[in-house]
């Protein structure tokens, strides 16, 4: 079986060039914009989430999770193999047609590393939000905690001509806004996560931690660790290659195995997984391999967690310890809440409670971004200039 190579290019400093090809972004002339659409956009390393709706009201007209990949169709592909004979496909469609495309992942460790592919991807996102192409698009885009100016400029360059206005906000803070249940703010016993909480957002490229205590977090209140889902995949893949040489498993297949079986804590054996290697079915035992790869994440996150707890004012710490929330894809790792809670307890922290964000974990950053888009004043938006 041919494995498509997932290309992640080194960070480029060159400005993004508009992509060429029949499926390239349609040239938008100076036609007046008939309406304004607000977008909350979580540009993830592996998966992106976009929520969009009108500027007024609370309706969400578009809600999509799209794998952050662009597929450039190879030359010579027979007509009809790719729907609409497109030269450019995205997301799930690209992953379904690995044999016929060059697959590019424009984001690595939370930042854009392929500007051209990033522009193509953003144009695709725009087409999902506004098929007519007539709307003014204002997008709040989540960025990793403490993303530097270069990373932010890359997003602006990629978004120029696609989004009309942007705001970039750290993802774990957006997760807190999204996780907050606005309908319960007046309930006496509701613990507003924006007032006193610590969010741990474990994505594909980065694990971001953020102390949220009723004000916008400073740089010191946020930690971004370039170790997350992709790093676990790499560790697991390396382990598999060592134990089962020439296994032929692609990184995507290894990620599937991880997403199905990942856990932290003591090794659980036997953990048997059926895989196809060289066209033949094999059952391999992965208990120790998964434990090693996933527990490495805990080793990275825990020191950052305790360092942020240490920053909180002492009067607030007891409530903060009750409001530690794990979100992002990493929240699906079995036992991650229990293990972090146990480590805090063992280290003497008073009655900590680590919670999982729940099944909506994919949407919270984008939801918080959309809330921010709806709340932003005119002079808070950034206008993209060429």
């Amino acid at each position, binding site marked *: 079986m041919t494995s498509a190579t997932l290309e992640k290019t080194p960070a480029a400093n060159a400005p993004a060039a508009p992509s060429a090809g029949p499926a390239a972004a349609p040239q938008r002339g100076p036609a007046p914009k008939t309406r304004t659409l607000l977008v909350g956009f979580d540009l993830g390393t592996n998966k992106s989430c976009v929520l969009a709706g009108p500027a007024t009201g609370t309706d969400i007209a578009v809600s999509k999770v799209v794998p952050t990949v662009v597929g450039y169709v190879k030359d010579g592909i027979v007509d009809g193999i790719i729907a609409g004979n497109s030269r450019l496909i995205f997301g799930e469609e690209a992953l379904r047609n690995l044999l016929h495309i060059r697959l590019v992942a424009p984001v690595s460790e939370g930042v854009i590393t392929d500007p051209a592919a990033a522009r193509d991807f953003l144009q695709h996102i725009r087409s999902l939000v506004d098929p007519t192409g007539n709307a003014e698009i204002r997008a709040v885009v989540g960025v990793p905690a403490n993303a530097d100016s270069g990373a932010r400029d890359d997003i602006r360059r990629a978004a120029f001509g696609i989004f009309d206005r942007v*705001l970039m*906000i750290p993802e774990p*803070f957006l997760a807190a*806004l999204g996780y907050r249940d606005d309908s319960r*703010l*007046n*309930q*006496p*016993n*509701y*613990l*507003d996560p*924006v*007032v*006193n909480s610590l969010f741990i957002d474990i994505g594909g490229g980065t694990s971001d931690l953020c102390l949220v*205590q*009723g*004000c*916008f977090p*400073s*740089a*010191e*209140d946020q930690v971004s660790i370039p170790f997350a889902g992709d790093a676990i995949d790499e560790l697991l893949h390396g382990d598999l290659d060592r134990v089962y040489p020439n296994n032929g498993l692609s990184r995507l297949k290894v990620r599937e195995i991880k997403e199905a079986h990942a856990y932290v804590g003591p090794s659980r054996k036997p953990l048997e997984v059926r895989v196809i290697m060289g066209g033949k079915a094999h059952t391999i035992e992965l208990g120790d391999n998964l434990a090693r790869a996933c527990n490495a994440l805990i080793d990275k996150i825990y020191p950052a967690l305790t360092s942020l707890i240490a*920053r*909180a*004012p*002492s*009067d*607030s*710490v*007891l*409530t*903060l310890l*009750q409001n530690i929330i794990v979100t992002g894809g990493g929240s699906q790792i079995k036992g991650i809440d229990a293990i972090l809670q146990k480590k805090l307890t063992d280290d003497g922290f*008073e*009655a900590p409670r680590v919670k999982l964000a729940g099944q909506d974990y994919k949407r919270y950053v984008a939801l918080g971004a959309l*809330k*921010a888009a709806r*709340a*932003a*004043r005119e002079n*808070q938006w950034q206008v993209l200039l060429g």
Partner: protein
Amino acid sequence: MCTLRALGRTLEAEALRTGEIEALTGRLRAESSDSDAAWSARLAGVLAAEEERVANATVLAEVLLPLLRGESPVPPVPPPAAASPVRVRLETAPARSAPAAPRPTASITDFLDEMIAQETAPAALSPGRPPRAS
């Protein structure tokens, strides 16, 4: 509905009563085999229980709030400012066993002002976290 009434938001409470609640109770009534009198009594009982629960919560909050202010004063949250960034420390935590009383929360617009202030302020002047209380 009971909470809205306790907060003095009677119009919203009435809208809820005549809208969503009436539609829901109507559907349940149609599926119920109770007599009209029995149904009305059940509904009245539920409403009475909820009103009492909200009243108890309100009283508890009124008792706790002065105690909380005495131990750890919460600065008042200013209304959203048009231009100036606002940095407000909203809470110092109550005792873990005591329920949190409702408190005003800074708006998202205010958070954005703070974010922009951090991004544009020189590093030496950027607002930092208040000193940790001992």
